[in-house]
């Protein structure tokens, strides 16, 4: 599965107080990625709204070459999903909502559903601002799955485009893989040795993946690996927060069954307490 570059971006916007910041962010991103940008508003089209939006757009310092504006009616989630399919969008951009009186950011139900149903990759923007905050440190998951190669490539691509300095590939290893219950000194030693072994294996695996990525994408970016023994999906989020990463890149969730929706898994931990901006890379099963 080759990675398809992000060339067509879509931002679904609402007229909220953070609209201006969001617009500035997405236009900046599009120009970095050298991509075309589509704005969609789900709701009625009025002259007032259109004027308001155009005013904001004019203030943007870097406007990408192709900008389109659509107005659609209907259910937000389904309409956005449809228009993504229609226009063959590569990357869907969403803003996070700030919970009143709590500084934590969370995703409303619309955004959550979109991350599940979107046919393309999704970028969740945590803290949009008018001025640019450089994206210095990217954390990307190295989970053992066919999707991961594309995800890592996407991370490098974005890193290059945004001129990041550092990239960390995190392999989350489930504790059960160690399979040694630590109860006394002997079992502790056994567990520690087992972990060292798994650490080496994981590192080799991830380094292998990176080797397969064309050199020019990797050059210039300082990249390292880090294994974490912990719950998948949760550990990487906590890690991203601890190292104060600017962007977290994850695999999209595999087809989740009805039952899986009830038990928080992987992405749910991240979505519940957004540590950073999150890019969820959708893999393409067909070339």
């Amino acid at each position: 599965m080759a990675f398809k570059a992000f060339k067509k971006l879509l931002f679904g916007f609402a007229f909220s107080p953070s609209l201006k910041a969001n617009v500035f962010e997405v236009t900046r991103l599009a120009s970095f990625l050298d991509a075309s940008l589509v704005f969609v508003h789900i709701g009625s089209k009025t002259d007032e709204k259109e004027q308001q939006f155009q005013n904001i757009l004019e203030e943007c310092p870097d406007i990408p070459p192709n900008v389109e504006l659509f107005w659609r009616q209907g259910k937000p989630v389904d309409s956005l999903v449809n228009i993504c399919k229609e226009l063959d969008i590569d990357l869907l951009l969403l803003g996070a909502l700030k919970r009143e009186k709590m500084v934590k950011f969370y995703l409303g139900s619309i955004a959550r559903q979109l991350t599940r149903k979107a046919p393309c990759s999704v970028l969740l923007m945590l803290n949009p601002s008018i001025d640019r905050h450089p994206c210095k440190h990217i954390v990307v998951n190295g989970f053992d799955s066919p999707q991961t190669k594309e995800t890592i490539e996407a991370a490098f691509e974005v890193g290059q485009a945004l001129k990041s300095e550092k990239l960390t590939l995190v392999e989350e290893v489930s504790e059960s893989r160690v399979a040694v219950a630590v109860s006394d000194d002997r079992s502790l030693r056994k567990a520690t040795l087992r972990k060292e072994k798994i650490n080496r294996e994981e590192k080799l695996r991830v380094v292998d993946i990176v080797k397969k990525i064309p050199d020019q994408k990797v050059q210039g970016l300082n990249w390292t690996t880090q294994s974490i023994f912990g719950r998948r999906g949760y550990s990487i989020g906590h890690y991203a927060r601890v190292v104060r990463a600017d962007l977290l890149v994850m695999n999209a969730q595999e087809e989740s069954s009805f039952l899986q929706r009830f038990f928080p898994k992987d992405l749910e931990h991240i979505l519940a307490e957004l540590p950073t901006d999150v890019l969820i890379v959708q893999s393409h099963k067909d070339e």
Partner: protein
Amino acid sequence: MSNKTGFAASLKSLPKNLFSGFVVSLIALPLGLGLAIASEAPPLAGIIAAVAGGVVVSIFGGSHVTIAGPGNGLVIVLLAAITTLGGGNLFEGYLYTLAAIILSGVLLFVFGILRLGAMSEFFPATALQGMLAAIGIGILAKQFHIMLGIRSVSGDTIDQLMAIPDSFLNFLAFHPFSGLIGFLSLVFLFLYSKIRNPYFHLIPAPMWVVVVSIGIGYYYNLVLKQATPIDPELLIKIPDQLFTNLPRPNFNKWYDLDFLGVVLSITLVAIIESLLSIKAVDKLDPKKRRSNVNKDLRALGLASIVSGFLGGLNVVTVIARSSVNVNNGGTNRSANFFHAAFLVLFVVFLGDQIQRIPLTVLAAILVFTGYRLATPENLLRVYKIGPEQALIFVVTLASTLFTSLITGIVIGIVFTFIVHLFLSKNIILFSLNIFKPNVLMYLEEQSGNYYVSVKNFCTFLNFYKLKAKLDQVPETEHAIVDFSLCDFVDHTVMEGIHDYQRSFSRKGGNFETIGLDIHAAETQHPFAVRKTLPINVLLGLQNALSNRQKSLEGFANQIGWEYNPELNNNPEGLDTFLFFESKVINYRINSLLKPDKTFSVFDLSFSEGAFITKEDLKATFLFFKVNQPLPVFVLDKEDLKTTLYQWAGFDDINFTKYPDFSKRFHLSGNDSKAIRKLFTPELIYFFESHPFFHIESNGRALLIKGKDRLSSLQEVKMMLSFAEDLHLLLSHRGKKVQE
């Protein structure tokens, strides 16, 4: 003191463990008898529990230096069980309780299999202390009257407490002689730790009072040719045929709610007491091994089942006896076995003598035990951590006293949680995050450090999550725990973190906590609850220096050294000395430091033993680094104690050419060849001609200790001049060797 591993070494260490097993049995005998009688069970029931514990746990257990037997905390539970389950008939109640003991043994075994050893972390530390204090008061209340010879006081704990002044005033009217012996025994038990004679301390205090009381009986019989003035109803009775009349446990009430409640209480208290004891004894293990708690629970369960079928009380890990084991050289589980063997020998061969022990003396031992559990110092210590902790303590104590054990601890847990809510004023923090994972741990590749980050909140409710991660870090490594993302950290966690710091520094690792600086605490105590709030700057009042401190400061100025009067909770570099192997260092204070940092003199507060055998000691030490590496050795004065150790297998390196030195000093160490090379005639003469100090080498530095108390200024000067001469002699020797 050899450190070799393997079967040969275990064989070699058998004499040591035999010795320590013997000393433990000296304290286990009176305790076993007393605990059984206090629970209204036959006296032998306690001994049976100790024997079952010693045999079964030494074979199947997972810890190394613990001793198993009847537990202090269980007296209250078993007493309630025996008196109520039989509907008034004590013997019937005893038979039902045996069945309960067997079932609780099964439960314990199952807990061990399910790896629920981590459960102990769920109990908030202060609430547990309150519960244990309530148990202590319960024991004390009942046994106080018996100690004075009055057996007629009944009612619940509060009634019994109220009746104490009455009993005290009137006891002479009942059984004056026995009561007086009991009371004097209690006084002796309190004064025991103040007497610093090493010969005296070879025999544990409970054994002293027992032996003396038996002696009094013999004195009357043999010397005065009179009947002993101790009333026969106040003497212990042991049945004649021990092995034929085993009681049969009665399982008929297994469906009864009361019965099930008893089983649950016994299991709960057994788990709490055992887990707390195992944790505490791990801190005293000279070989710094980590115990397999779940394996121990399984062994304790098995032992309880065996004990129940034989008519004994249930088996838990006991801390006082374990600490006596460690202090007397116990190194592996055979000590537990030997203690059981000696108990059997005592009962079989000394049965007659045992029956001359007055109940009042045993009651005195129990009153002392109860006092140690409930000492007011505990409340003061808890208050120093934070006023809300004192409140939790008192609430749990009161609710346990007025209701039952289980209700008491449940109220304690709920109240602790309410206090947390009140302190953090943030119920959302807890409700949203209680089931979420909140700990991240990874190994930093460049530094080799284990980095742990904790989010949201960390209290007794979710400490087990943090513990599960921390337990996976080898204690020889460097661990950093970061609480910056955590909004609330409670006292149980702070104490647990402190335990980790201790065990890491004992094994040569490093355990750091960061991120707590931005948290405010009610008090400056290291265990106080931390919450993120604007920091209140607390201006502490600087305590004025004492006279001794002033003179130490003057001396430091005189010789151009630095003087630091401040308390240091975590003095480094001392754990490698053998002296502290089975002791816990509390703090260092009043340190004098030479500018080039090679010499330092300081006072140290440390404790030996645990619980009722705990002794808090203070002494002044001198520490200096040496230029060239030395073999590891300990030089002690030769006296009765070290002679006994020799019999128990601790080698003394003797010099046939220097009989005076060999006679007066006890020199030990692993590398006898290197030690003999080090001890040249000049060095031997030096030691022979100078005042005696306890000297140890850990290879790179020497530690010198004077008396078993703080040294006066003059003594410090003597110690310093001694050390400087020694240093000169050693460097001179080093130069000679190089030439």
